[in-house]
């Protein structure tokens, strides 16, 4: 009884604080937690379960109130709409939407094979499996990373380790490109930085940059740290100007390194992130903000999503304080099992709305939040 009242109090405090710290806040509870959050359009996202056997893939349409700009106050609609749904036979560890289509590709984290899905249209609300793509490994500890080619006909880049990376054409299943390297480093990220150039981040911190048009060997940038047990995650900012194309690498010990895409080994800036439990993480996500210059977001170390301004970082690693912290998942999760505290499994930025993010946690919660820049509090509420 006491615990319940105490818990309610903490929640109230955070909620009351949130009146000033968030413009918008929505809190949802999925039936099953998701590890994937992927945009399928400007106002819809895909989520999927990761339990051992059967799971659901859901396409959720964002609440109208969040997206309504002019008539926001007259719109009372705050709920997610499940627009399409389907069933998978195994966990979903990676889900990528193919731009310009109603197609998505998933990987179960157990092998490097991919499953291909039709997300459904107006006629039906069922997400159906339409095929599969064979990967190189029938058994894989982490599974494959997937990246969809930004334009052109539907093609996916995928692989569980750096030597496996290949580009497959969806329609024919044909392999259009293979990365030529002998290294067997497992991948933690894979993304296109232009229509043909991609970046592959390895768990050990090394980063490869290659072009799918050539068979020339990739550019390799070594890991910032030689520590063995440290795992690294990478994200590249795909800005319009080559000068804004930067890469950030974050390690399981909380080290963050930013470098220029054209000069990965060169001097960039660094910081020691203020993460709660360094070392204990498996689902770290690091992401550049699509429209806020220099801002990055990090999650996976705990039940918190942190936003940092990298412009404040210097050449020497110093402790960095986050610009903003979303503590909603940590604060509102009701713990039944104290040994495994709730942690954030994924988060994404809205591609256009500057400070709107979605985050998901291991307790099945999904939050949609539009945060207020603490440096601009008290000013006019324009983005």
């Amino acid at each position, binding site marked *: 009884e006491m615990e319940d009242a105490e818990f309610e109090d903490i*929640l109230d405090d955070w909620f009351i604080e949130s009146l000033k710290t968030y413009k918008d806040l929505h809190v949802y509870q999925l039936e099953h937690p998701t590890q994937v959050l992927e945009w399928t359009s400007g106002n819809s996202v895909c989520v999927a379960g990761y339990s051992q056997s059967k799971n659901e893939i859901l396409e959720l349409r964002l609440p109208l109130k969040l997206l309504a700009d002019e008539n926001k*106050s007259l719109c009372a609609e705050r709920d997610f*709409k*499940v627009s399409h749904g389907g069933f998978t036979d195994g966990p979903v560890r990676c889900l990528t939407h193919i731009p310009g289509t109603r197609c998505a590709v998933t990987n179960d984290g157990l092998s490097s094979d991919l499953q291909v899905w039709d997300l459904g249209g107006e006629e*039906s609300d069922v997400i159906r499996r339409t095929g599969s793509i064979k990967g190189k490994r029938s058994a894989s500890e982490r599974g494959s990373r997937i990246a969809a080619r930004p334009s052109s006909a539907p093609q996916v880049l995928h692989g569980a380790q750096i030597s496996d990376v290949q580009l497959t054409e969806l329609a024919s299943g044909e392999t259009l490109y293979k990365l030529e390297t002998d290294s067997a480093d497992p991948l933690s990220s894979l993304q296109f930085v232009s229509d043909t150039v991609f970046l592959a981040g390895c768990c050990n911190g090394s980063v490869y940059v290659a072009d799918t048009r050539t068979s020339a060997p990739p550019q390799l940038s070594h890991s910032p740290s030689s520590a063995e047990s440290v795992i690294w995650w990478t994200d590249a900012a795909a800005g319009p100007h080559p000068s804004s194309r930067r890469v950030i690498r974050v390690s399981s010990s909380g080290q963050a390194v930013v470098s220029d895409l054209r000069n990965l080994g060169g001097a960039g800036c660094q910081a020691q992130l203020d993460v709660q439990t360094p070392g204990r993480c498996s689902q770290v996500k690091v992401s550049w903000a699509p429209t806020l210059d220099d801002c990055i977001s990090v999650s996976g170390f705990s039940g918190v999503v942190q936003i940092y301004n990298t412009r404040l970082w210097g050449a020497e690693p110093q402790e960095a304080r986050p610009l903003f912290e979303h503590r909603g998942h940590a604060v509102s999760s009701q713990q039944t099992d104290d040994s495994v505290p709730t942690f954030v499994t994924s988060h994404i930025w809205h591609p256009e709305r500057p400070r709107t993010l979605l985050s998901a946690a291991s307790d099945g919660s999904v939050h949609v939040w539009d945060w207020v820049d603490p440096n601009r509090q008290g000013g006019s509420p324009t983005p």
Partner: protein
Amino acid sequence: MPEIKVTPLGAGQDVGRSCILVSIGGKNIMLDCGMHMGYNDDRRFPDFSYITQNGRLTDFLDCLIISHFHLDHCGALPYMSEMVGYDGPIYMTHPTKAICPILLEDFRKITVDKKGETNFFTSQMIKDCMKKVIPLNLHQTVQVDDELEIKAYYAGHVLGAAMVHIKVGSESVVYTGDYNMTPDRHLGAAWIDKCRPDILISESTYATTIRDSKRCRERDFLKKVHESIERGGKVLIPVFALGRAQELCILLETFWERMNLKAPIYFSTGLTEKANHYYKLFITWTNQKIRKTFVQRNMFEFKHIKAFDRSYADNPGPMVVFATPGMLHAGQSLQIFKKWAGNEKNMVIMPGYCVQGTIGHKILNGQRKLEMEGRATLDVKLQVEYMSFSAHADAKGIMQLIRMAEPRNMLLVHGEAVKMEFLKGKIEQEFSIDCYMPANGETTTVTTNPSVPVDISLNLLKREMALGGPLPDPKKPRTMHGTLIMKENVSFMLVSSEQALKELGLNEHQLRFTCHVQLQDPHSDADTLHRIYTHLKSVLKGYTIQHLPDGTVIVESIVIKVSSSAEDSNTKVLLLSWSYQVKTWTLFLEGLPMQSKPGSSPNHLVIESLF
């Protein structure tokens, strides 16, 4: 096969008008009688022509059940009862009975006075209709007639909302109405026992929704109120006397206390009296917290919230006022609105749906210039906020309810079948039950498998047990023979045939079939019979074969006799006789089979060949 038929009434696929017809065990029940708030013509009423083309509905319906007081569930009630015509029983919970007529009268006033409609139900019709109402208590079985019984369960959602269990014999249906599975500040969560109905009927609209938490809705409310107060504005919150008003008051009181705010909060006195009155009456319908509070003190005794006086509306500075009625269509809330509308610092927060024709409805549709009485125009400069606090179940909630009730079949109304395939698949997969989704006007027929309890006589039971074999098991039924006697249309008894005949005072008759088969055999009759006996014994192992001294061979229950033909002593005639129970027999003679067809009469023996 016994079946239950369910038909949602009304035109089109629209949500917004609940009225479902159920035919079960020879009884016809109407569930809810809602009005569609989006139409101005006959489309707003359910399509009763499905029941009968013209004339009263009394003869066609055994009862009507109303789940709660929202107009999309009871709005067409006076029309159906007094204008179309129905004199049978109308069931609803006590709070619904108390609140329904108030909402219906408000609705009528708005429609007739504000919108000038003529063909609408009158105040007297509302009164006459409510006279037919029989109130229900929770968890209490009510006998509508000898065969039909109903029971109400707590649904949450609004005060007095019920889910209803309908039973005829061993067939049953549960209708959820609107419900929610998470408790809120003044209502508990829906609950039902594992009643295992043949069909669970629910709305499909919420099944594809994932609801934002109530905390976030509250947060939005507090944020808006706080922002207005901070800039010196006045906030008007038009409410109906019950439910939301109280919840929002509790919320503001807590917030004011926490933030140490000074701006005054008022509620109109009419509100307090009504609310207190209703809560006293229906205390069992609210949740634990409210009940505890009420026992300790008056519902509306707050530290920061005071009774409103008309004159306060002109006071300078920020304030918050709760006033009735809820849709700004008349009375105090409208008066205050008129005073405050011209100032952009002010705000009006509409906490619920507003019926067409009301000011509330107009401003929620973005209208910024309103025509008032005497041709005066009102410029709406204040901020208008629409917030929905209604508690509904969602996708997760439906699954929880199915787990609670364990229905044999699921039926979802008000959805587009094509858009619900995923949900249908999900329910079918998780619970291995069929999920139906009829369109409005379409009938779904669900075959039920009702169990009929039958007593068995001890003798018969003993006899069956003596036959040995495995014990009877629900998963492995055993066939047995007996006679079913039905006494006084109520009790069933299974007895042995002999006992049945005895009770009926009849003699037992036996049917035996005979046929003659000719053979050529030079031996004597007795020898031929013996040869047949030894031959059969060698060929038919495992069967009881006897050679009786009276000159017959008996194979199980088939009797064989041999006699010589009168014309020729070498021609033997076999007389075969068997009782009705023997389905097929095959006669093996000299290794060549002679068969009877199952069920064939003795004249149609198929004799393959004679040696």
